[in-house]
Structure formats: C-alpha cells, structure tokens
C-alpha cells in the first residue's frame, strides 16, 4: 500500500489551509483540551444527539464521538468538489427519471436491464410517473474519500434519505461556541444556510395542484428511530411540521394533517421512512408507519414525496459502477469525480479475481449500508476472510469488491495527543429548482488507529468541516 496522504503535513511542512490550526493546537495546553472535550460532550448530551448502534446488544443509544480538530478544505479544492458533486447529482436524477420512464440508458445498452428492473429497490409502482420537475432525489449524499492532493473518489451515492446533516450543523455550532477566536482568525464559509436551502428545495417541488405557499412536513417513523433527533432538529430549523404516519390521512386526492384546528393540507412530504413502509396499500401491507392511500395521492399529483419512492435504485452498489456512464450518457460530459474501481462478483472474471485477492480488497454487500456486511481484507484475520468467502461463494451476485484505498488522514485528538486518523466526507447536495450545496459536509473519522471504517455504527466519529473563504 502506498503512503497515506496526510491533509495537514506534507514532507514535514504544514499545508497552507491548516497553518493557523497548528498555532492553535500548539497554544492549547493538555488540561484545556481535556476540559474542552468534556464541554463538547456535555453540549452534545444536552442537545440530545445520540446515535443508535445495531447488533451489539445493550443500550443502543450512545453519543457519537466528536473530534474537535477541524477538517479543512481550501476554496479551490472545494470548487472542484462542488462541480463534481453537482454533476453527479444531476446525472443520478436523470438516470432515475429515465429508468422509470422509457429507460433509454438500458435500450442503448449502457447498463444491463437486469441490474435496474430486477433490483430490489426498483419500484414498479412509480413507473410512468413524472414527479415535479422530474426530480427523484432531492437530497443527494455523496460519500467521498481522498487519496492525494488532487485525488478524490466517490465511495457511494445516497439518493434516498442520507442522514447526518444535523451533525454537520451541530459540529459547527459547537465549535463556534467553544472556540470563537478560531472563527475570527480563519475565514470559514458558513453552513448554517442549509435549513433554508432545504426548505426552498422542498417548496420548489410542490405539486402543480398547489397554488399557494406549500405546507411541508417531515415524516418520521417516530422517536424510536435512530435519526429521530435529526428529524425533529430539521423540522425545527426549517419551521415545518414533524409528522408521523398516524397524523396524516388522505381524502379527495390530497394528503391531510390532523391539527387541533382541523385538517390542514400537506403538499410536500420530506420522508425519513423507507419506501416499503410508506403506504400499506401499495407496499408492505403490514406497515404501521405509513399512510394508507398515500401512493395513489402521490401518483395522481396531490402531494410530493421527497425523495421520490423508487430513488433507491440509484444507491445500489452494482448500479454505482455505472454512474460515470450516466454522466456521459445524460449530460454529455466527462465525470469530474471518479468512482473507485469496482469488481462485480456477478461477473465470472471479477468473481475469480475477488476470491483470489480477498485479503487485499474491501468486499461489500450490494444492498448493505452503514458499514454492515463488509470485509476490509487487509484488516481482517484469516478466519474472518474465510468466513466472508463462504458468504460470497453462496451469493456472488450480492457482492462487489474495491481496492483498499490509501485514505487520507487528518490530525485528530486521541488519548496520546494528536495523531492522524482516516476520514471521508459526505456533502449534501440539494436538487430542486436549483442545485445547491452548502460549503462543507459531514466529515467522518475512523477513531481507531489504522482503521478505515468511518461509519458511526462501527466506532467512527465526526468532525467540523471547514471550507476556507478566499
């Protein structure tokens, strides 16, 4: 493996965007650091940010670790990223609109029809329906890793309901509260415009039947959900309703919210529940979370649902390999952001290669997410690799593999002081009347030394992400 790129130090020198941070850490005594860390934790606890970790037993609610050392991008770096992210968000939306319409990309032989139409996430029920402005994914979370000064790769796309944006906002809020002088010394682009931008985006995709300022609601599965805090936090900041399925009903081709002053029409639903649970009449009949009849109202143009049901087909890790092709096919442009080279175990040659090189590769379940169901070859024991091999052999089509990337590292506060830890980045691209991106995103950090898994469900933490103004 090549030397990992350190975002702060290059050849013994501090890279420009981190220059002031070096002075900051040098001037910070250990006791102060410990105090600030405790303060940050208390603040997070007070606002109630927790994160549920599945599959470990015991109390699933735990605080997501916050690292005070910011991750920094220059304006130049960010501009390049921004162009690439927006391009990708446009292509993904064009793809979704296409595969639920005439599927030209399949007809043109650019992507196998099997991969699209036999995909679990493909919703036959919305075929032929065009959502407002033709947009399926209104919030595209694109996970990006860095391997060098100019080398960025997209790890995966999240077109459904990418979570974590509340951490982006809270991390900044807490950093500004604890270290106001840092924000005076550095010119940092603000991220607090996100809730307004999200609200504008949602309002811009109200159904054509809505002839006034649209009523918007966030549909949550309820307070048992691991991201409930984020749902209520966003509803609060946007000044929109936070609703559960039982608060809503359909009548006369519209969706209504029960209020103390009688029913109120809801025009746009930012849903944070999966397709399968939206409407027991259309999807899972046993769903208690959804609204019976909602899909009929949606498909007849009475309400907008964001992201549009069916958007998940673009998140699939096998479909992912075709995103650069989508950029060329729909936009006639060359992709600005690269994919990680990917082997698909469904292909015999790729399968053979993956089995022979498992110890060197990252192997992922096609439909998995959140770092569950994956193998990091170089970080695994022989037993773990053999156990995973059996899973791949049983269902090759369910797995893809990627080279183990030399992920960049940024300085992180650890027990012993400051040490480099691997990071990724999830920016949130908003797609409505305009395509917008607040300068920043969520930086996730693998807190364990040498670990490459940044998922909070696997012991990852978060950092404030800075984009320096010019």
């Amino acid at each position, binding site marked *: 493996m090549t030397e990992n790129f350190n975002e702060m130090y290059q050849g013994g020198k501090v890279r420009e965007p981190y220059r002031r941070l070096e002075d900051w850490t040098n001037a910070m005594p250990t006791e102060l650091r410990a105090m600030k860390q405790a303060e940050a934790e208390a603040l997070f606890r007070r606002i109630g940010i927790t994160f549920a970790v599945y599959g470990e037993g015991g109390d699933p609610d735990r605080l997501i670790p916050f690292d005070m050392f910011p991750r920094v991008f220059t304006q130049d770096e960010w501009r390049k990223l921004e162009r690439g992210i927006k391009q990708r968000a446009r292509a993904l939306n064009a793809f979704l609109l296409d595969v639920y319409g005439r599927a030209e990309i399949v007809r043109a032989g650019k992507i196998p029809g099997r991969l699209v139409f036999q995909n679990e996430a493909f919703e036959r029920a919305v075929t032929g329906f065009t959502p407002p402005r033709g947009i399926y994914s209104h919030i595209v979370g694109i996970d990006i890793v860095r391997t060098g000064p100019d080398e960025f790769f997209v790890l995966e796309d999240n077109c459904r309901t990418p979570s974590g944006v509340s951490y982006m906002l809270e991390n900044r809020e807490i950093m500004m509260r604890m270290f106001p002088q840092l924000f005076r010394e550095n010119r940092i682009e603000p991220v607090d415009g996100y809730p307004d931008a999200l609200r504008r985006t949602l309002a811009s995709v109200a159904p054509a039947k809505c002839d006034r300022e649209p009523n918007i609601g966030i549909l949550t599965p309820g307070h048992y959900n691991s991201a409930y805090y984020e749902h209520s936090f966003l509803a609060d900041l946007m000044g929109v309703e936070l609703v559960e399925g039982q608060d809503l009903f359909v009548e006369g081709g519209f969706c209504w919210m029960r209020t103390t002053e009688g029913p109120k029409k809801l025009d746009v639903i930012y849903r944070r529940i999966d397709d399968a649970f939206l409407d027991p009449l259309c999807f899972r009949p046993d769903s208690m979370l959804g609204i019976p009849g909602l899909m009929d109202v949606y498909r*007849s143009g009475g309400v907008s649902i964001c992201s549009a049901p069916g958007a998940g087909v673009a998140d699939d890790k096998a479909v992912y390999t075709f995103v650069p092709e989508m950029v060329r096919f729909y936009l006639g442009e060359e992709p600005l952001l690269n994919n990680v080279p990917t082997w698909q175990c469904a292909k015999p040659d790729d399968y053979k290669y993956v089995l022979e090189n498992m110890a060197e590769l990252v192997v992922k379940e096609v439909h998995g997410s959140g770092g569950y169901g994956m193998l990091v070859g170089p970080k695994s024991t022989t037993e773990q690799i053999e156990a995973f091999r059996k899973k791949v052999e049983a269902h090759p089509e369910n797995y893809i593999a990627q080279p183990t990337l030399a992920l960049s590292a940024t300085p992180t506060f650890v027990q012993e002081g400051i040490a480099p830890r691997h990071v990724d980045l999830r920016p949130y691209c908003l797609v409505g009347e305009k395509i917008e991106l607040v300068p920043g995103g969520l930086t996730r950090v693998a807190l364990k030394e040498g670990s490459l898994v940044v998922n909070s469900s696997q012991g990852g933490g978060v950092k404030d992400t800075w984009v320096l103004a010019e």
Partner: protein
Amino acid sequence: MILTVNHVTTYEYDAPMRGAVQSLRLFPARFDGQRTIRWDVEVLGGTRGGSFRDGAGDKVEGWSIRGPVSEVTISVVGQVDTTDTAGVLRGHRETVSPLAYMRETTATWQSAEIRDLAHQAVEGASDTLDRAHRLSNAVAEAIAYRPGVTHAHTTAAEALAQGEGVCQDHAHALIACARALGLPARYVSGYLFAREDGEAHEAAHAWAEIWIESIGWIGFDPANQCCPDARFIRLGSGLDAREAAPIKGVAQGEGAERLEVTVALEQVQQ
C-alpha cells in the same frame, strides 16, 4: 361480444370503523381486445380521490370513507365490447419493462417442485410460445380445479403440493413456473363470461400473462386450458394476486370484517 358487468363488493364490520381507504384497480384495460362502452365505479358514501394510469397501463383510483362506518360497498356497473385476440395483449400502452416481472413474491415463490414441473413441461418445446403453452397445460394437469381447498394466501408451491386449487392458484403456479425458466410473467385479474346461455354467473376470474419476446404479453388461463378470448374482460395486472387485486383497502378500527361479493356477467344480444 358485448358483456354487461354487475359487480358488488360489500365489507361488513361487526363494530363501526373509524374510516376506510381504498385503492381500486377496477377498470377495463385499454387494448385491441376490448372497448369500454360504459363503466361506473362507486363507493357508497365514499369520497373519490385522485386517479391515474400507472406504468403497467392500469387505471387506479383512490377512495376514502369517513367513519364511523360499519359497511363499505363498492359497486361496478359497466358494459364492454370484447373481441378475440387469441390471448395477445395487442395495442396496450405501458412503460414497465417486462424484466420488472421477474421478481419473486411470497405467493409465487419457486419451490424445487415448481422448478421441476417447469423444466419437465418444456422438454422438447420448439420455441418460447410453445414453452408457454406447455407450461400452462402442465399447471392445469398438476392442479385440479376445486374450490374451497385453498385460500387467499395459499402460495403456488402450496397449491402444487396439494394438487388442487382455483384460478388464483393456477395463475400463481404458472407465473412461478414461467419465471423459473426466465420468462417474465404476471398476474391478471378480470371477469369471465362462463355461460353461453346468457344466465348470470359467478364470474370474477384471474389468469396469467407471459412475455414472449417476439410477440409481447400473452394471456394463459390454465383453469380453463385456453388463452383469453372474447369471453374475458381484463382489468389490471401485478406480480401476484395481492398486487393485481381489483380492490385493496384498509379500515381503521377493531371490528372483524366480513366480505360479500356478487359478480354477474350477461351477454347483450345484438
């Protein structure tokens, strides 16, 4: 053939419900084999919601009924002019790719027995169309028509193991067999005019459609060992009976539900 349809569905609840919502896929398909002369759907005491035509070409309409309600009645009165297209769904506009009909569902799960039946049936078949016909015949032979031995949730595999069933079981079994051979297949709900003497007859029916690349969707009715002709009225389709159901609904409340259905088809003498 001009057919008159009178179809009344009543849900009775033993305690008043807080309300009910329905999604109706209860409208004749538009294709060369049938022309709707008139078709009125009404949910008594209900409010009509939005309607649309989905990607599979089916018209769907939502309804809601405010509570308290102890009975929901859906009535259909209509007249359709049908012609025999030898089972071919010609002139039907839809956008869904046939590949979307390869997905397994609980009802169409392919047991080893289903796969065996499928593979044995098509041995020596000349082409895809021939394979489809042989599958349909094999299903008819393997599952004898007998009402009352299966229920709404019986799967294709269960019906095959039992060797008896009704049109829903035949359709599920044929769909499972076709998909096992890599042929897209779907469930179709509709009506069948079963008596030539013009007398009213219980006539809610279901069959399967199989995708034949060179022709398109073709209907197969194992229960009657034929392809749909002018006696059939096609409504909607889906991956299985649950998806294709002409009436889907939920009622909010604790009451137990009792269902009563009467379907009468009559031929209009010209």
